[in-house]
């Protein structure tokens, strides 16, 4: 028996060591890349640029929170578990609804609620497809993504629709205590989601549902309801973000769906920054800012923006390969 005991112990040690190595490696890579940009990319460290990057990253980060909550509640195995491919297209649709209603003369609060409701409705559709119709999330949310972008095209007739209002320009240009309104939105939203996921009993249960649904069910949790919540919350994030997008551009434009790749990259990369290699709000925040700085640094270095998309794709491949490799060695 002695040998088996020491065997399990040493394998745990090895795994713990590998985990520490990967996490330190991730932080080191992050540091090196930022340092490189600081030295070689002119203007990278200027306070204007740093604020600019954070503001640009707000949209990405909140969408990535939606994706993160879906990962938490429906399983971190992207290939079998949950994913919300519709989140970015959903934000586009919600934005189109928002702008159209404002131009029809709806009061702002109502239009905001309608946009958020649109996002949540699409999230509900995702949940329905996954929970009731038992579709694999990859396919279900891909279909909903197409529905969302199709509806967006129908509403906007493929046009950029401009809009302006006092509320939107406050959101865009307002400052408080020297920090821009957008950055405040990010701070408040982050505290809210972090509380919900990491400091409430609800979060513990959502992690349990995603971690091992059978065990959660045996513990008396309603697994289906938690999965519904994940997708509807992701839809809420999409609807909420659509207002920020509209305020930033003073218009609803097509192409929000292109945010999917960086959002996915950020949410996946975020798992590397957590102790248990699970999606966390803190990890996703670091990863989204990193993705934002990466794009910004490349821009300042004069690297073609086409490369950015390639690098994000490579990041996704790397992180997914790394985590599924880690899982395999765990099983052995």
């Amino acid at each position, binding site marked *: 028996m002695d040998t088996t005991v020491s065997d399990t112990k040493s394998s*745990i040690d090895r795994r713990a060591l590998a985990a520490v190595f990967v996490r330190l490696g991730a932080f080191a890579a992050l540091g090196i890349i930022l340092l490189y940009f600081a030295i070689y990319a002119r203007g990278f460290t200027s306070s204007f640029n740093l604020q600019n990057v954070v503001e640009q990253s707000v949209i990405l980060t909140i969408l990535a929170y939606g994706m993160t909550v879906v990962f938490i509640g429906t399983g971190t195995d992207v290939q079998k578990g949950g994913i919300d491919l519709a989140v970015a297209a959903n934000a586009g649709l919600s934005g189109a609804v928002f702008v159209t209603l404002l131009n029809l003369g709806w009061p702002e609060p109502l239009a905001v609620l309608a946009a958020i409701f649109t996002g949540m409705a699409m999230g509900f559709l995702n949940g329905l497809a996954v929970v009731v119709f038992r579709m694999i999330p990859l396919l279900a949310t891909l279909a909903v993504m197409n529905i969302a972008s199709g509806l967006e095209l129908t509403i906007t007739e493929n046009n950029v629709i401009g809009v302006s209002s006092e509320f939107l320009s406050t959101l865009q240009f307002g400052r408080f205590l020297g920090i821009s309104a957008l950055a405040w939105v990010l701070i408040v939203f982050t505290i809210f989601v972090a509380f919900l996921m990491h400091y409430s*009993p609800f979060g513990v249960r959502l*992690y349990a549902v995603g971690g091992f649904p059978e065990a959660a*069910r045996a513990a*008396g949790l*309603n697994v289906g309801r938690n999965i519904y919540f994940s997708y509807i919350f992701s839809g809420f994030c999409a609807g909420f973000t659509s207002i920020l997008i509209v305020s930033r551009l003073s218009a609803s434009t097509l192409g929000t769906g292109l945010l999917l790749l960086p959002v996915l990259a950020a949410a996946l990369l975020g798992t590397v920054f957590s102790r248990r290699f699970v999606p966390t709000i803190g990890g996703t925040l670091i990863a989204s800012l990193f993705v934002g700085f990466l794009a910004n640094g490349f821009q300042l270095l004069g690297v073609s923006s086409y490369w950015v998309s390639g690098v994000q794709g490579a990041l996704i491949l790397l992180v997914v390969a790394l985590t599924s490799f880690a899982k395999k060695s765990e099983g052995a």
Partner: protein
Amino acid sequence: MSDIAIDMRGISKQFGPVKALENVDLQVRKGSVHGIVGANGAGKSTIIKILAGIYRLSDGEVEIDGKPIDTITPASIEKEGVHFIHQDRLLVPTATASEAVFLNNEPRVGPFLNARRMKREAVELIKKHFQVEIDPDTLVRDLSAAQQKIVQISRALANKAKVLVLDEPTAALVAAEVTSLFGVLRALRDDNIAIVFISHYMQEIMDICDDVTILRNGENAGNVVPAESSIEEIVALMVNRDTSEMYPRRTAEIGEPVLQLENGTRVGHFENVDVEVHKGEVLGLTGLLGSGDKQLLKCMFGLDQFDAGTFTLNGNRRQFGSPAEAVKAGLAMIPEDRRAHGVAVDLSVSDNISIASINSHSNNGYVDTKSEANMVNGLIAELGVKTPDRFLPVRNLSGGNQQKVVVAKWLSCESSVYLLDDPTVAVDVGAKVEIYNLINRLAGEGKGIIFVSSDLEETVEMCDRILVMYRGRIVGKYQRGEIDSDQLLAVASGASTDIREVP
């Protein structure tokens, strides 16, 4: 308030047309450890899953602590204080130990999780009941099997469990851990908690249980008090068969040789092996893992090739390049790995059985459904396959019955020699006897049978002659009655080389 914690009466459960439980009663007293035993497929796990709300019962009544319960769901049964310690350690691997203990019952301050109290209470709870310390921040996946079991039971205790149901709790534990688990269970019993204990290990049932309910074929087979009973009595109730009748007698007449192998050699597996099987004879072939016995069967059946030797079947020298040729020449093989070469679960019982012999039931390309049906129904009756009719998809059968279908499939081809590779491995006692009867029937029809088995007692009891292989050579030849299973083990393991030639 009543003395009975769990009262299940007249419980029946059907899966499609298959009856898994019929009119089963189960009464568990407060402050007692109640064992449930039964062979595979007797209905132990079904009744537990009904109590856990995983299956809906088809008929019957359930009372918990004297209170009738209409519909059971996993969430509602926990509210009644009934907690399940599942065999497969249903825990979230990425949760910490303290999160797992308090899942769905987390201590909080206002809307916040009180993580500090949660950790402290988890440590205290575990220490109080188990006298061990577990770091509350350790992830569940990094805990040992025994520690995970402790976390599972602690979760039930944190939820103020009145009834604990343990399904095979000792499966992954070593002896010392079992002893300390039993100490914990006795302490809980003295706190008036009712404990339901399911185990395959009879000695554990005798040691820990105050009452035992025995299930057989989905029905009550009796209740006994271990203190006033014996393992033999309980086992007899489980199988309802005197163990001396396990091996039915055979009256087959042994005729002329039907299969002969001289100097059979497969480099690296066996060399210079002589085998002769007569009509109506059961030849046992046994040896430890890697002795070459299984490879020998493969070479005969065309799954592998002899390097040297003379192989004769029905008087003709043969060398089969593939199993298809072997089947055509009159060989049949029941492979050991039924999962890989097993059943097509979505096809009917009938299709699965007749798939290997469909050509003998067809005229000019048309299937003669009448003759197919006769053959299939005959085999279903003979093997005792528990199915309402032959059109049921094999998926709806229990594991043991699926295995019978695989056996029936190969028996449906009319062959002259049957090669059986461990046909009773992982089959319950009842199904074993049916397979023995079948072997006897084949012998009675004048078939030759080579019976490879890792069960030495079965080999001794069932075979007319026994060949023992050791490191690729035949090291012992015995007639029925010349050797018992202990001596056989000594020869097979190379401890004894008492070779006796058959006269």
